[in-house]
């Protein structure tokens, strides 16, 4: 089964990221890139609007929508009650009835409250009614640990959401990717969960000045290498790249692949890389079992069994609720040292 990836839009004249990068670029933070994507899409399409907790007057708890309320007004930038079920449910209903809502769930930790609306309403509406309904919905949320927020506020549960057919799950790692992917998500005619790691917002990167889209569902080689394939997504791409830099000092060449989206999951570049390196380490912030790394490992052994020279390694958070105390929390999370250790184990 194929999932639509907005390629048609790109074919219709909007540039891809790769094409746009040939032109003028400017340095932007991850936050600014996401903010710019929202702004441009709202300027372009009257049916796009934002709803969520503190998105308006406050300007967004992560300041992504600062200035939006003053510019677009309360009709299109809607502060909601603290009602996750109703935010996702009402956004789904509005999408069914012709709008393109961008609903914000302040953090993914609160998305559990909206899980039924996301899964049983948004993701199932089309199939269950025989294709009658279309749900062009984006739900933006933040994820991840590392900020001393303790167990309830430090989840990385992306695999839970990636489990369900009917959804797209996108997890960008760079400002340029985030902007192009979010614009593509807003133009997609399906429910997309767009997950932003809360410690990436200040990261900077080059972003094309010209408009571009990044089709959903395309993995990306973030760093080419020869000796080992490191597969990752979101914040863990940064961790993996740091590990690769360290490994290079010892003459180990690591290829780092950013999945960018978990559903659809584009593993072709991973298979291609693995057939070259014959070794893989998968890095994700989620707990160690029933997750994306397990899925990637299973598919790797299925598709690349004859190319496998060592057991596939997985680097995840520890199998404990995240603690508050700073050093204790840091030791529960993946870091470059753990990635390096995993690489050395199989080289």
């Amino acid at each position, binding site marked *: 089964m194929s999932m639509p990836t907005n390629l048609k839009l790109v074919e219709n004249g909007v540039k891809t990221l790769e094409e746009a990068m040939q032109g003028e670029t400017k340095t932007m933070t991850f936050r600014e890139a996401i903010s710019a994507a929202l702004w441009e899409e709202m300027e372009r399409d009257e049916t796009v609007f934002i709803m969520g907790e503190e998105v308006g007057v406050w300007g967004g708890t992560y300041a992504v929508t600062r200035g939006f309320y003053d510019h677009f007004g309360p009709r299109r930038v809607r502060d909601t009650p603290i009602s996750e*079920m*109703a935010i996702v449910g009402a956004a789904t209903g509005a999408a069914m009835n012709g709008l393109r809502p961008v609903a914000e769930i302040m953090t993914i930790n609160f998305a559990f409250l909206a899980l039924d609306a996301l899964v049983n309403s948004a993701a199932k509406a089309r199939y269950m009614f025989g294709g009658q309904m279309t749900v062009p919905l984006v739900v933006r949320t933040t994820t991840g640990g590392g900020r001393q927020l303790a167990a309830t506020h430090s989840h990385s549960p992306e695999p839970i959401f990636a489990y369900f057919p009917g959804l797209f799950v996108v997890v960008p790692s760079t400002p340029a990717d985030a902007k192009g992917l979010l614009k593509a998500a807003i133009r997609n005619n399906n429910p997309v969960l767009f997950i932003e790691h809360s410690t990436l917002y200040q990261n900077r990167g080059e972003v094309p000045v010209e408009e571009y889209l990044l089709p959903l569902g395309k993995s990306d080689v973030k760093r080419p290498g020869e000796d080992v394939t490191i597969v990752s997504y979101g914040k863990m791409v940064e961790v993996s790249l740091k590990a690769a830099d360290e490994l290079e000092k010892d003459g180990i060449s690591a290829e780092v692949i950013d999945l960018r989206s978990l559903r659809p999951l584009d593993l072709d570049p991973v298979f291609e890389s693995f057939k070259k390196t014959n070794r893989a380490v998968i890095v994700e912030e989620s707990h160690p079992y029933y997750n994306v790394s397990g899925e990637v490992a299973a598919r790797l052994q299925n598709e690349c069994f004859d190319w496998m020279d060592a057991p596939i390694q997985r680097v995840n958070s520890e199998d404990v609720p995240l603690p508050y105390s700073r050093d204790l929390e840091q030791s529960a999370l993946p870091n470059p040292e753990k990635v390096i250790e995993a690489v050395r184990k199989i080289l």
Partner: protein
Amino acid sequence: MSLTDQQKIDAYRTMALIRRFEEKSAELYAAGDIGGFLHLYIGQEAIAVAANYALREDDNIITAYRDHGIAIARGIPPKLVMAEMFGKITGSSKGKGGSMHLADVSKRMWGGWAIVGQHLPLAAGLALADQYRGEDRVTMALMGDGATNIGYFHEALNMAAVWDLPVVWVVENNQYGMGTAVTRASAVADLAKKAEAYGMPCCIQVDGMDLLALMDIFTEAIDYARSGNGSYFIEAITYRYRGHSMGDPERYRQAQEVQAKQLEDPIQRWGQYLLNENLATEDDLARMREEAEQEVEEAVTFARESDWPSQEELYTDVYAD
């Protein structure tokens, strides 16, 4: 809005059609032609019919899983509903949804949703989209009494009230959430009180088996919502004669209770009204019941003779292009 004489006659026809459709569905379920869960609307027909008359054709209607009556009253042909319940490709949802997931978006009948309360924020969202575009549509959201206890209900009503969304919320209080009586599950027996908490105008409880009373209150509520005043809440007191779903042992109520309620039957009462008003004769009523029987038989034949979905259908409609 008052009904024309023809609408009054048609209302009897539609209620009789729903009743016969449901009786036949029960037989077909027992025979194994219909699978899954089957929740019958018998006893509640007047609500669906009044709702459809009170709403404009371009208004939205959305309901829970006891949805056959709403679907038929809204104009989904019974043969498409029956084919859906048989799981055939000709069904209103191509055989992918079944009894609990009937919809026809072209008629703005937005489903049949089977998680209690899940459709209530959807209703708010449907209304939000219309309000956003400056269109004067109203959304009617029907629910069972049990739905007033779930979080979805409170979040959706609060949001709708905060944003003045044009929704008419209708509780079809059939006295039981599955097998648990309203008084055993709800802190207040008067369910309209729950909507008072959200500042909505609340009718006193309306007799959900009295078509004219329902028409009056639905019309008032729809006018209120359409005029930009926001949401309106109605509790219609009704009764389902059959169990929650097929296979319900009905340990929670006595047969005498069901028999007593059947004396208030909405279809018999409406038939008597037509006789009293000289709008129909006994023969006319009998003929309409026979026509209903005939239409249901044709629906069954259509469903039986329709094709099953192809294996390819398993993979279609998961995503939109």
